[in-house]
C-alpha cells in the first residue's frame, strides 16, 4: 500500500515536471518592476508563443494578404519602422501615426500613442480593423485561419483544439509580444556589474537623471504614462492624442511616453515621426519656444549645453540592446514554416 502511494506521488511529480517544462516562465530582469500583464489569464507556453510569432509575421491578418504586423514593426528596428514617419497599410495607404517600437510590453497597461487600447490582448484588433492598416476584421481572420490546415494544426498544438477563436488569436499574439523583452543593453550590464560606463556616458547619465528621468524613468526608460512633448501640432494630421479619445480638455496633446531604449534602431521619433535624429529631438527640447511652453505648464525646463547634449546622447546610446534586436527567436519564423504561403 505504502509503495503504491509513493509510486503515485512519483508519477504525479514526474507529470508535473513535464508540464512545467512546457510552460515558459516569464523572467523579470534585474531591477525591473513586477510586470503589469496578468499571466494567470494567459500563461506563457512555447507552442502558443510560436503560434503568436507565426501570426505576427503573416499577412493573412490583412484584408488582401499584403500587410503583416511586421510590415510596420520590424525586428531590426526594435519592432518599429525605420525611415517611415507614419505607418503604412493595404493599398499603399499611409496612416496617421509613427509605428512605435515594441518591447517590454508586459510592463505597459495602455497602448497606442493616445492610450485608446487598455490591454495588450486587445491591441491587435486596432491595426487589424483599421481601414488604413490591415482593413480586415477579426471574424474574417478567424475563418481564414480555420480554413487553413497549417494553422489548424498550429492551433491544435497550442490549445489542444483546432477550433480557431478570436480569443485564441489575440492571446497567441500577446504571448509572442510578451517575449519581446529588452534588458541587455550596456546600461543593464553596467547595473549588473558586468560593464562600465565611459566618463562621457557617466556625465550623460547624470544629465539624464536631472532632465529626463521623471518621464523616461529607468530602468524601463518610460513611466508608460502620458505627457506633452510640446511639438507644434501638424496642420494636416491635427493629432490631439489622448484628448481625442477621452474628449476631455485636460488630456489634449497628451501622448504616451515612449521608452528611450533602442533609439539607435527605432528612428524616426515622436508620434508623427518628424524627428530623424536624436540631435533633432534634443534641439526641440532646448529651443526657446519649448522652454516657454515648459514654463507655462509649470515644468522644470531642460538645461543642456552643446557639450551636455553630446554627453547625453552618448548615454542614450548605452540603452541600445543589440542582443534584443538581433535575437533569432524574435525574427521571421522561417524554421517554423513547413510550407510557403503562395
Amino acid at each position, binding site marked *: 500500500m505504502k509503495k503504491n502511494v509513493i509510486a503515485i506521488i512519483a508519477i504525479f511529480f514526474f507529470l508535473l515536471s513535464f508540464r512545467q517544462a512546457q510552460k515558459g516562465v516569464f523572467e523579470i530582469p534585474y531591477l525591473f518592476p513586477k510586470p503589469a500583464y496578468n499571466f494567470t489569464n494567459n500563461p506563457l507556453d512555447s507552442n502558443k508563443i510560436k503560434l503568436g510569432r507565426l501570426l505576427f509575421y503573416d499577412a493573412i491578418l490583412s484584408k488582401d494578404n499584403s500587410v503583416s504586423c511586421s510590415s510596420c514593426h520590424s525586428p531590426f528596428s526594435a519592432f518599429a519602422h525605420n525611415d517611415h514617419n507614419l505607418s503604412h497599410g493595404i493599398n499603399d495607404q499611409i496612416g496617421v501615426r509613427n509605428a512605435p517600437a515594441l518591447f517590454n510590453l508586459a510592463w505597459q497597461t495602455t497602448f497606442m500613442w493616445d492610450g485608446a487600447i487598455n490591454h495588450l490582448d*486587445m491591441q491587435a484588433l486596432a491595426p487589424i480593423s483599421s481601414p488604413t492598416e490591415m482593413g480586415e476584421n477579426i471574424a474574417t481572420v478567424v475563418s481564414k485561419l480555420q480554413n487553413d490546415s497549417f494553422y489548424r494544426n498550429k492551433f491544435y498544438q497550442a490549445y489542444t483544439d483546432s477550433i480557431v477563436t478570436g480569443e485564441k488569436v489575440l492571446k497567441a499574439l500577446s504571448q509572442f509580444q510578451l517575449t519581446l523583452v529588452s534588458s541587455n543593453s550596456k546600461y543593464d550590464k553596467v547595473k549588473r556589474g558586468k560593464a562600465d560606463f565611459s566618463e562621457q556616458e557617466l556625465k550623460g547619465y547624470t544629465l539624464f537623471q536631472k532632465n529626463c528621468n521623471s518621464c523616461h524613468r529607468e530602468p524601463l526608460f518610460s513611466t508608460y504614462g502620458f505627457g506633452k512633448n510640446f511639438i507644434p501640432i501638424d496642420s494636416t494630421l491635427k493629432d490631439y492624442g489622448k484628448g481625442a479619445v477621452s474628449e476631455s480638455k485636460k488630456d489634449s496633446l497628451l501622448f504616451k511616453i515612449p521608452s528611450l531604449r533602442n533609439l539607435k534602431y527605432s528612428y524616426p521619433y515622436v508620434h508623427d515621426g518628424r524627428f530623424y535624429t536624436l540631435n533633432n529631438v534634443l534641439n526641440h527640447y532646448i529651443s526657446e519656444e519649448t522652454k516657454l511652453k515648459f514654463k507655462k505648464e509649470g515644468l522644470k525646463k531642460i538645461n543642456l549645453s552643446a557639450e551636455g547634449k553630446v554627453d547625453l546622447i552618448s548615454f542614450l546610446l548605452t540603452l541600445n540592446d543589440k542582443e534584443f534586436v538581433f535575437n533569432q527567436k524574435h525574427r521571421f519564423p522561417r524554421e517554423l514554416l513547413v510550407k510557403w504561403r503562395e
Partner: protein
Amino acid sequence: MKVLLVLVLSSALNLAAQRISFSAEIGDSMVHVLGDSKLVSKLMFYVSDLQLETKDGVILEMASYRLIDFSDSNSLVIEAIYPDMKEVKAIQFKLGIDSITNVSGAFGGALDPTKGMYWSWQSGYINFKMEGRVKDKNYLLHLGGYSSPFKAVQQVVLPVLHQSNEFKIVLPLKDLLQKEIPENNIIMSPSLAAVLISKKIASFFYLH
C-alpha cells in the same frame, strides 16, 4: 433532445428547470427573430450576471455572460436547473459588460471579439447594438463605454408577480424608434448620449 433530458432529469431527481426568454416588442407583435425588416435590421445586447432572487433572499445565478442576438433564436433562451426551486421575488441582470471585464483582456464564448460587439479602435465592449431605418433615415446605435463619466452598463431589476417556470422578458422598442432614435440616429462611441439612452433602455424591460 435537450428538453427531453431536462424533463427526465427533473422528474427523476425532483429538479426544477427554470427558463428565461427574451423577446422584442415591435408595434403590436412580439418578435423573436428579426426577418428582413428594414425598421430593425440588427438587435443584439449583452446580459450579464443574470440572477434570480428568491423570496427568502437567496441569489441563484443563471448566466454570467450572454449575448442576446435577435438573428439567432437559440440565443434568446436561457435555461438553468435548480435542485430545489423557491418562489422567485425578482429577476436581475446587467445590460452590458462590467468595467473589470472590459479591462481584463481577451475572453472567449459570448465575449469573443468576433461577435461584433467589441470596438477595435478603442478598447471596450458594445453593450447594446441596434441598427435599421426609421422615417427614411438609417440609424446605428452602438452603446457602450466602461469608464466614468461615460459608463453605460445598467442594472435591471424586474419584480416577479406570478411564479412560472418560464419568465418572458420583453424589450419594447416603441419609444426608442419613435423618440430616442429620431433625435440621435448615430451613436458609435462612449458618450453622454450613450449613457442616457442605455438608462432608458434598461427601464423599458418588463415581464410578460
